[in-house]
């Protein structure tokens, strides 16, 4: 089963900013360790939502707007793709993500299997 592990941060980013350089390095180390964990097949950190462009096509015309599709306080800050046996394994991986304990939240979504 494949899961998209979505990292929602906002508070967690400001809390991260408040950490010392050493602590920041340790947190980044944790993220890299998760990237290299068995079953993690991909992942990335996203630029902030203010850099987003939203695209629609109406009558064949491409319409773009500045900003994210959903204006929410908690923004998607990054993700991992995770191949695991079951939801318990995915929850355990999610719980290891620093944002989860720094005021953010992790949303675990199964991918449609084809």
């Amino acid at each position, binding site marked *: 089963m494949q899961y998209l592990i979505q990292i929602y941060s906002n508070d967690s980013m400001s809390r991260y900013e408040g950490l010392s350089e050493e602590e920041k390095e340790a947190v980044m180390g944790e993220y890299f360790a998760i990237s290299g964990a068995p079953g993690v097949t991909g992942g990335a950190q996203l630029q902030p939502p203010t850099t987003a462009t939203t695209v629609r096509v109406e009558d064949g015309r491409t319409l773009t707007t500045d900003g994210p599709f959903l204006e929410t306080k908690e923004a998607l800050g990054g993700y991992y793709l995770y191949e695991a*046996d079951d*939801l*318990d394994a995915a929850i355990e991986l999610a719980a290891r993500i620093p944002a989860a304990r720094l005021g953010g939240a992790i949303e675990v979504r*199964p991918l449609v299997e084809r």
Partner: protein
Amino acid sequence: MPADPGRWLVATARNRAIDRIRRERTLAAKSKLLEVSEAVEDEIEEPVFGDERLELIFTCCHPALAMDAQVALTLRALGGLRTDEIARAFLVPEPTMAQRLVRAKRKIKAAAIPFRIPPPHLLPDRLAAVLAVVYLIFNEGYDGRADLAEQAIRLGGSLAELMPDEPEVYGLLALMLLHDSRRAARVRNGELVLFKDQDRALWDWPQVQGGRAALERGLIPSGASWSAASRSSTSRRSRRPGALVAVAAAPPRLDEQIVGAGDDAQVLTGAADRQQPLNLL
């Protein structure tokens, strides 16, 4: 630019509102169609074998499911209640309950919620979740729905049978049996009767004995009489406060109450403050 921007805005806003109401109506109508088909789907049940009950209850009570879904699934899958019966017990329309069950089942499948007894490092939390669901069902039946209380006691009994080395299971079973044994004495002429004023002849004494036996079983010190095999699997872990602690907190006083010596209903409040809402009626 329209000639009268103010009026134009109001008209636009009104039209939008009408659109939205229409859309919501359509959505409601379509949802109803959806509910019917989901209810039909709910009729398809896979057979469950007796020796898989434990795996089943841990799946039904998985914390990734909403609490009300956990309760409904447990009653459905282990209690053998029909969807309409569960709906009636929780005062929701049958299609709502059917939908709740179908959604939960879909999530179990789509998100791969495992069908297994949780590994030791997850077991304490997961067992607590299972016990919470059973206790919730019991409480739902506490002041009226005797059938739900019976269901909960039956589930507790099954759990004790399936997990004979888990003190908390016996704690919950004892709690439920002891409280339920006073059911007949708790109400007189439509009025609640306090513990100390209850007619003890109305207590269900075999059930009191059952509750005491379960309590004693739950109080066996860790590992004292457990087989080596079971000790290595589930029992070696830190005890967490729970239902058992609440009951066991005042064993001498509880005994007094049970044998009829101590009459003060207040004796249990200490335990109640600490952890569980012990019912004093």
